[in-house]
């Protein structure tokens, strides 16, 4: 199985069953995982833990998803952190709103975990070492 090294992912979702499944999936693919079921815990982890990527459910209770995203972009440490936002909301303009809030990518629920994995890998793929300069003889 292809692993990506121990990159740390924060899962922010209030559905415990889904989080359990996603944890199994991501750890199975070699990631280290942190989980937060609400906005407060999510922001605490984002500030204190060294995190490489966040998967965020926009539909956290009481507008928590939007709150988390907006605040993550405010902290200097997490301002450029990749955040993949998922939502079951299909209203027109939702994607525009999400990207406007600072999302790095978007995925509509219900999605295949394999599709989410591809998106994560796109952000966390190890950068290819720069080719050494070839000097002309």
């Amino acid at each position: 199985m292809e692993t990506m090294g121990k990159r740390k992912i924060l899962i922010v979702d209030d559905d415990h069953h889904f989080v359990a499944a996603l944890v199994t999936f991501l750890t199975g693919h070699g990631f280290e995982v942190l989980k937060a079921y609400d906005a407060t815990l999510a922001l605490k982890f984002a500030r204190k833990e060294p995190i490489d990527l966040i998967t965020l459910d926009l539909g956290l209770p009481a507008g928590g998803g939007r709150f988390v995203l907006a605040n993550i972009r405010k902290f200097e440490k997490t301002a450029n952190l990749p955040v993949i936002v998922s939502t079951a909301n299909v209203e027109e303009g939702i994607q525009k709103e999400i990207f406007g809030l600072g999302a790095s990518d978007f995925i509509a629920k219900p999605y295949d975990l394999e599709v989410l994995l591809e998106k994560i890998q796109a952000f966390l793929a190890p950068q290819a070492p720069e080719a050494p300069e070839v000097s002309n003889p």
Partner: protein
Amino acid sequence: MSQKNPENKTDRSTRALVSRELGDPHKRLLSVFFMTGVIPVLALLYILRVNMAFGVKALAEIGPVLFFAGLIMTLGSVIGYKIVRRIIARAFAYAAQAKRADELKSSFALSLAHDLKSPLLVIKANISNLKAGFLGALTPKQEETVNVCKDVADRMNTLIMGLIDTYKIEARMAEPAKDSFDLRDALKEQVRECAAIAGSKKISLSEDLGFQALPFEGDRAMILRALHNLLSNAIKYTPSGGKVSIKASCADSFGLIECRNTGPMIPTSKLEKIFDKFERLEGTEEGQGLGLAITKDIVEIHQGRIWATSGAWEPNCFIILLPLKEK
């Protein structure tokens, strides 16, 4: 702070809709009432004229008859006016009720479809874990069962997304954009996309898009969806080795799209019903019966028409007529 009352708004819009359809019924009734009320007066004038010509006897013989006839007509028109007015008032109330019930039904179905997404996501996630072997190695029999579960979950996903699309379009939540494009380009794109599916079923897929441009203004994504549904539906119901063809042409100010397939004949009684939600032909198990319903909604949003023809000696044909952009 003032609050808008959506029910009043619905009533007003329904009333306006019915008034527009029927004209202003009260004004019409009043004019009928006036006309019928005028009849006895005219009759009396006529009697007076006859009386002048033939003497008092004529008035004595014909006069009462005409007078009572006029009286009955006047009374009748008054009673009739009240009855008809009550019927129309009830019709307004029923129309408003029916519209509210329809809106409630759509809103309920939409929120139900939404609510189904979360449990489905959990099911799909666990299936992914099982398939990946993260919960232990599977025996071949278990793997087969997991694959069946995955197929069913995918079908459920398609159904939910189809339902959401249908009700979104019905509720006009998705206001169509006004993109300018050539209908033939949209068709070419969809033919390309469906070629692989047709190939896998050994179905010959041909196109005849002509040379004349079909400029169109509307929601490109929606039209692509409608054309995709049309083609994939034709491929789905055509047996292996059959033919599907798509033709586009200009008919006056309309773009005419004809999609033919050599699938089983569609019974005449089903030719209209196949565009209803969840309607599938007997003996078919594929699909959720939403594709053509969505296509019809999209075509109608763009002021177009769609219908189907089928016969024992001719291929099934689905025809779409869309108004072209004025030059």
